[in-house]
């Protein structure tokens, strides 16, 4: 059963806007005139490992939107090597065990050309070994450092989104220069928080700053008042990366604790991704700073490419669904799907990809990539791909909350987020 038609329905279901509608309106279907010049008009099958259910479902929905919008655009432009793109969606239930099964289905049942799209790191880590065994190129969109850290394999790549290590260290210069050098970190007490702690501690010291307190919060905590007295008086900046259902409570209680006089506050939008910044309880965030992977609110200087992408995924100027303005997008991350699909297209074209026998050629073609200038294919901004570590590096945004919206006050350069290579995948055999 064709999944290309799925694109139009998923778009409709999830409220894509007129932009994608126009892209899809071309009605480019497998075998239609647009693809007639290709040696084969059979579609390029891309297996989309989607968090349709489980704890990643909120992300899965928006990753689905970006994926189908990108596929619609690619088909509108004539497909890949003259062949249409078919997105085959399987639910991994945000479950590593299931994720590996889904890859097997992609390879053996659907016979896809590549697999793509996973966000949650534990699903990536659970699936990637299987991708290696199946010799199936696996393009992830997870931000995790696990790709560049060398723990995965040659078949796993992350060319469409930066990794969290790069994101964190690129924040340090701005924090040290503009907010303060004495930082108290508040983070959930597990791997996610620990990595922020470790990456940032090192990076801020390199900028002449120091972390004066590290406050680890147990993951099951739902009230935080008793932790705030542990914040040293000398603190100039609070760096927080709280996640989970109690984030709103955390912000509210922090506001109540500090009252009108507070240190500067910096956080990762991951805490409030897809949450309306104007939600009751978040008033305290006024004047605080957030990392954003891509600016949620349309900026005065937003590039033409970024605006075209915003329209294609059906998101309004405030970062919410055009048709359902209370439904805020996972805007800081979902561009990764769009960009990754375009990297796959570029890689397949560079490798003259014809079928699964050319999978190794495809990986080598992507490994050979370097500069990816800002364009409709890369609407988030310029990127540099490191073929050895299989990881893309790009700009990062720091936005300030004001008047109930987020506005970019600093853009960290690609260089701010670079670090020493930890692996060279190109030396590993296929």
């Amino acid at each position: 059963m064709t999944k290309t038609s799925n694109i139009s329905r998923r778009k409709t279901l999830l409220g894509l806007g007129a932009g994608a509608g126009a892209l899809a309106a071309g009605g480019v279907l497998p075998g239609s005139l647009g693809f007639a010049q290709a040696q084969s008009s059979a579609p390029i099958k891309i297996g989309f490992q989607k968090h349709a259910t489980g704890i990643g479902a909120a992300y899965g929905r928006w990753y689905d939107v970006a994926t189908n919008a990108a596929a619609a655009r690619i088909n509108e432009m004539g497909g890949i090597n003259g062949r249409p793109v078919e997105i085959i969606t399987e639910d991994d239930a945000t479950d590593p065990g299931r994720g590996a099964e889904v890859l097997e289905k992609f390879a053996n049942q659907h016979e896809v050309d590549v697999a793509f799209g996973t966000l949650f790191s534990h699903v990536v880590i659970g699936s990637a070994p299987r991708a290696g065994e199946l010799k199936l190129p696996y393009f992830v969109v997870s931000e995790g450092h696990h790709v560049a850290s060398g723990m995965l394999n040659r078949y796993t790549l992350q060319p469409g989104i930066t990794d969290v290590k790069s994101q964190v260290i690129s924040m340090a210069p701005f924090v040290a220069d503009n907010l303060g050098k004495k930082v108290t970190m508040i983070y959930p007490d597990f791997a996610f928080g620990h990595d922020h702690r470790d990456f940032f501690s090192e990076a801020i010291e390199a900028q002449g700053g120091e972390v004066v307190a590290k406050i680890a919060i147990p993951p099951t905590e739902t009230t935080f008042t008793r932790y705030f007295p542990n914040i040293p008086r000398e603190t100039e900046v609070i760096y927080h990366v709280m996640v989970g259902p109690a984030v709103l409570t955390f912000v509210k209680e922090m506001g109540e604790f500090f009252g009108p006089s507070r240190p500067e506050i910096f956080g990762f939008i991951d805490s409030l991704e897809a949450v309306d910044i104007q939600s009751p309880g978040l008033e305290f965030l006024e004047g605080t700073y957030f990392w954003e992977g891509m600016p949620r609110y349309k900026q005065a200087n937003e590039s033409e490419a970024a605006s075209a992408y915003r329209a294609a995924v059906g998101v309004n100027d405030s970062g919410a669904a055009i048709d359902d303005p209370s439904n805020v997008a996972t805007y800081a991350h979902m561009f990764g799907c769009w960009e990754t699909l375009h990297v796959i297209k570029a890689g397949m074209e560079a490798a003259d990809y014809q079928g699964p026998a050319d999978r190794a050629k495809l990986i080598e073609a992507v490994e050979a990539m370097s500069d990816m200038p800002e364009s409709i294919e890369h609407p988030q901004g310029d990127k540099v791909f490191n073929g050895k570590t299989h990881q893309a590096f790009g700009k990062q945004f720091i936005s300030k909350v004001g008047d109930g919206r987020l506005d970019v006050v600093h853009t960290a350069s690609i260089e701010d987020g670079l670090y020493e290579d930890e692996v060279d995948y190109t030396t590993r055999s296929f």
Partner: protein
Amino acid sequence: MAPILKPLLAAFLIAVSSVEPAFAHAADQGFVLLLPTTAYIIGGTLTVAITILLLVCLRPGQLATVLRPIVLNRGRGDSTWHHWGQIAASLCLAGLILIGLRGPTDPQANLMPLVLWTVWWMLLFVVQALVFDVWKWVNPWPGLHRLLAPDHKALFRLPKEVSIWPAVILMAAFQGFVLADAAPNDPGRLARFAFGYWMFTLAGMTLFGRRPWLEQVECFSVLFNLIGTMRIARAGAFGLPGWQVFHGSRFDLSHAALVLVTLAAGSFDGLYETFWWLAQIGVNPLEYPGRTALIWPTTVGLYGSVLLLSCVFGFAVFSGTVLVREKIPFKNAFIHFSITLLPIAIGYHFAHYFVTFLVQIQVVIATLADPFALGWNLFGLGSRRVMVGFLTVPGTVKAIWLTQAGVVVMSHVLAVILSHRTAETFCHTRRDILVLQLGLSILMICYTIFGLWLLASPRGA
């Protein structure tokens, strides 16, 4: 190095779009945690406690009058129109199985899981319990069988003494599938399960007869018949919810077991997503490992809950039977008091799935536009948008939470009323009526707190 997980807001905006029951509810967790839920829990519990106290003031027998039905039309003949509905349901099921096997692999675009979980398990369950006997019209099992073998004679006799124990076992297994299976949502897998169960049912009906099989073994027919006893109307008679329990319904230990399995499963379904439960099994709720890793803890937890509820409930009943002056057989009391838990099982079912239903029914409608993923837009349904933003608006979240909590409290109030009436059927003095229910009343109050706490608790699964 340690892997970086990306728990992010997904733990905040948990799984609104999940299609299957095990991931129900709670997009709105962050806002719920900001609500004064402790005050609401106290208020709800007081409502149940006050109901218990008010019932004490009733004269024995007064409730019997209240729970007596009004008979409007007893002489209505048996129509066979519903046979056509059942045949249509068989065709629909066959279509769904086909879609499950050959349709889109995304469960959010495939009618098999969407219809099964959202329309059947969430919606029809509640309609059957509250509105009318919809199962009689949409039961897919007898339709095809009746067509194939209209004058079928059973080859073997299913003993009456077996009662509905086979259905109890099957229902317990089904609940295990819903809660513990790694991928109950996978369209193809679900279709194969449904097909397998259909074949099993056809074989059973052929061997043991259509009616005995549907009344004793086929767990969904049995469950739907049982929850139907809470409807206000039956065969031309009307009364307050629960009246049927006292008029013409016969129950044995197997019925008690089915109620306990249903209530325990519904309760555990809420519990196993909470931070509390995840902490008990050593899982970081912000780093939820997925269902595959938790198959055994969930299975043990589910059946442990059935056992625990049965023991606690049994003890509550037993304590009453030894305290009263009249001699009351424990088994009889256990059976009849257990039926009074049925409203709570139904109330939890509603409350548990309410949020998921509000989103998923929109997905079902939009998917109906193109059931085979061929690019159709039947009836213009494909242009309908699935709205989820309302789950991030504090006012709506509060209204939804209060609706869920209200239903949970009302279900407990009804259970308390039915329990009081049941006690009246065993005892004749006001003292004994009260003493018989002493343990049960304490259990009811605790269970109300538990049910409302479930709604208010942070969840990580």
